[in-house]
């Protein structure tokens, strides 16, 4: 927290409450620094330089302070480079490398950092605070600018609430983003007055005002810088860097191509010591265990399986909402929360995963649908035949397709709409909005969220191909808020487990963005370059396996035989009235279908999860008082107190 004037103190008690609120992210200890009109606190998940590496880190040169969450993987190379120029280091941590680089090169240094990070850099001499978030937004960073110019910031919004300076109130437009795009679109969050830095974003605050706010990196297409690189070498290096840690690193294995490829490369790098972790489901419609076990056997990893049943999903949902800090449209983050719990129970704190491959190498069905829709413009007969071949059945039970499906996929939205690739998802998700109370619908319903997105498209967007636009939209709307946050960082860090993503190395992105399109999607064959790379490393059936979307049961956990009692309570008219978002009569219609076992459709599943998760999110975060955030009571590992000397100096 930083205040406009040096004479206004930051209470240590507030910092202790903030530390406690996010100790799950840093269970190994914490440190704090009090400066004149500034207070920084950091909780630590110890991964690099275990004995040292505590924060806040202070510069001996000028008193700058850094609190930093995440990893810079190329810190060893950067340290060598700085050492060759005469720099001396006190620790072997990446934090110290980042602080030195910032001091020497300013924000230009960011472009040389390869990693996932969110940090706050305090320069007391200028009373300037700089907040920075990594390129893809792997690490979260929230802030609130108060009326008096105070800036409160923290990895998670609950740190801001714990400060006592910011209250948790719903932001209807942020919630409406969730029911359009699956997550709030930065800088918006689902809380009024709380913002988040966008991926690749930075913010500079000086003496009570935000003086700069921009993206230091954005994804672009067409003219990437990786065309000449070798993908095997690049991915091998990305995995090698992401295995750097002073603690063991494991891997998540879904049974699909991407995580299998990452696990194969990690196993080579680690020389046969890799431990892999998978989610399995009791319900065979969601279960991929046979594929996971086949890959683990083939790679010779020590494999762990966590089975998520309906009762486990229902039991964990309230805690998941406390961590995601946003309502959800899917229950899929819940099994990953349970998986991280088991990773931690097995004494691992770092896992690598295959996240990002589908966005970079066009693996999602969404990209194939773009191709089919374009074909439909001039050859509708062929487009329908392709669709038939591509989606022979509908839904989880293998139901027959009907004309509604074809019409929905081929005719939703105008072909000229820049968001064309994403309108079917938005349209299906918007089912949840049908349950808004009329006054909520009047304020935020309809297409407001999509209209805002249309106004925020980057320069150059019009010049990209339809598939490149779809890729930008996927990276910009789904990857960060949903896959990396709600289904990634938040549910892993809930248990102090750090996810690392080799496909999201910016060099791999640059390579993929500059590949000819047919090296990604060739007709209906996706991830072509990746499949070729995998052919040397994995069994053929895994290399050629079509993508199975990762999903978890949505209605059964809450209305099946093992459903907990609190579900009906959370969805009762009285509870709905308290949240003031949902129309009780319409929700009643949905609940009737859920109770009768008729709510089997994708849209109804989304509606139920959307409504129930909003209720729980509100209960967990908006209905709690100050006593929800007690102070940290253990001793800090670092305590820097300059508040008295500087305040006195300034007063003098």
């Amino acid at each position: 927290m930083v205040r406009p004037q040096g004479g206004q103190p930051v209470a240590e008690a507030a910092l202790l409450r903030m530390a406690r609120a996010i100790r799950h992210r840093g269970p190994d200890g914490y440190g704090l620094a009090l400066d004149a009109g500034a207070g920084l606190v950091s909780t630590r998940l110890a991964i690099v330089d275990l004995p040292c590496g505590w924060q806040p880190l202070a510069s001996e040169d000028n008193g700058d302070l850094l609190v930093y969450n995440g990893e810079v993987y190329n810190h060893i190379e950067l340290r060598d480079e700085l050492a060759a120029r005469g720099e001396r280091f006190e620790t072997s941590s990446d934090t110290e490398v980042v602080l030195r680089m910032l001091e020497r090169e300013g924000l230009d240094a960011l472009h040389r950092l390869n990693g996932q990070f969110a940090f706050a850099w305090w320069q007391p001499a200028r009373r300037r605070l700089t907040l920075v978030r990594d390129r893809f937004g792997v690490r979260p960073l929230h802030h609130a600018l108060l009326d008096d110019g105070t800036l409160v910031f923290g990895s998670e919004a609950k740190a801001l609430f714990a400060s006592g300076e910011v209250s948790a109130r719903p932001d209807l437009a942020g919630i409406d983003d969730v029911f359009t795009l699956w997550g709030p679109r930065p800088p918006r969050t689902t809380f009024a007055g709380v913002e988040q830095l966008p991926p690749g974003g930075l913010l500079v605050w000086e003496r009570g005002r935000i003086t700069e706010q921009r993206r230091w990196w954005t994804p672009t297409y067409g003219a990437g810088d990786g065309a000449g690189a070798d993908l095997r070498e690049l991915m091998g290096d990305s995995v090698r860097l992401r295995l750097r840690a002073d603690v063991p690193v494991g891997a998540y294995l879904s049974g699909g191509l991407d995580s299998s490829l990452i696990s194969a490369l990690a196993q080579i790098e680690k020389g046969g010591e890799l431990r892999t972790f998978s989610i399995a489901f009791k319900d065979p419609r969601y279960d991929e265990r046979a594929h996971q076990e086949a890959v683990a056997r083939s790679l010779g990893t020590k494999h762990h399986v966590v089975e998520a049943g309906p009762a486990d999903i229902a039991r964990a949902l309230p805690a998941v909402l406390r961590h995601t800090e946003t309502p959800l449209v899917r229950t899929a983050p819940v099994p990953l929360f349970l998986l991280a719990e088991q990773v931690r129970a097995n004494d691992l704190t770092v896992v690598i995963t295959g996240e990002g491959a589908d966005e970079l190498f066009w693996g999602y069905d969404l990209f194939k649908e773009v191709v089919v829709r374009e074909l439909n413009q001039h050859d509708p007969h062929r487009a329908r035949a392709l669709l038939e071949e591509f989606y022979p059945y509908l839904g989880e039970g293998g139901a027959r397709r009907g004309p509604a499906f074809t019409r929905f996929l081929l005719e939703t939205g105008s072909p000229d709409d820049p968001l064309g690739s994403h309108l079917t998802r938005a349209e299906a998700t918007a089912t949840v909005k049908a349950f808004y109370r009329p006054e909520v619908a009047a304020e935020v319903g309809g297409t407001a969220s999509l209209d805002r997105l249309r106004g925020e498209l980057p320069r150059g967007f019009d010049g990209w191909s339809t598939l490149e636009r779809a890729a930008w939209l996927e990276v910009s709307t789904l990857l960060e808020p949903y896959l990396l946050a709600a289904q990634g960082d938040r549910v892993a860090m809930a248990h102090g487990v750090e996810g690392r993503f080799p496909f999201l190395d910016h060099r791999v992105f640059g390579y993929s963005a500059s590949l000819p399109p047919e090296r990604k999607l060739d007709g209906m064959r996706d991830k072509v370059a990746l499949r070729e790379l995998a052919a040397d490393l994995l069994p053929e059936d895994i290399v050629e396996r079509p993508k199975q979307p990762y999903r978890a049961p949505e209605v059964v956990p809450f209305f099946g035989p093992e459903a907990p009692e609190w579900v009906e309570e959370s969805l009762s008219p009285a509870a709905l009235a308290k949240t003031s978002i949902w129309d009780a009569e319409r929700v009643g219609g949905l609940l009737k279908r859920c109770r009768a076992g008729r709510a089997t459709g994708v849209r109804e599943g989304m509606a139920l999860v959307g409504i129930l998760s909003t209720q729980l999110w509100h209960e967990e975060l908006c209905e709690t008082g100050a006593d929800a955030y007690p102070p940290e009571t253990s001793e800090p590992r670092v305590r820097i107190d300059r508040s008295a000397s500087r305040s006195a100096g300034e007063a003098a």
Partner: protein
Amino acid sequence: MTDGNSDIRKDMRGFIEENFLYLRPDVELGDGDDFLALGIIDSLGFVELVEEVQSRYGISIDDVEITEDNFGSIEAITGFVERKRAAA
């Protein structure tokens, strides 16, 4: 209009109101109104509708018969069921 015909209309209206129209209180559905154009029924809802007709009236439905002409409105379903019954 036969009694059977009016029963089918009534049954189908009840089924659609109970299962789909709770989402769309703004829609006053006429017998000839197009479900898909109005966005009342999505793809899985359409499948559910076909299955309901199949089991309620004990008729078997081929994939090629799952069209908007046969299932696109209450009137279309009524005509389809009557034709199937007459052909049986």
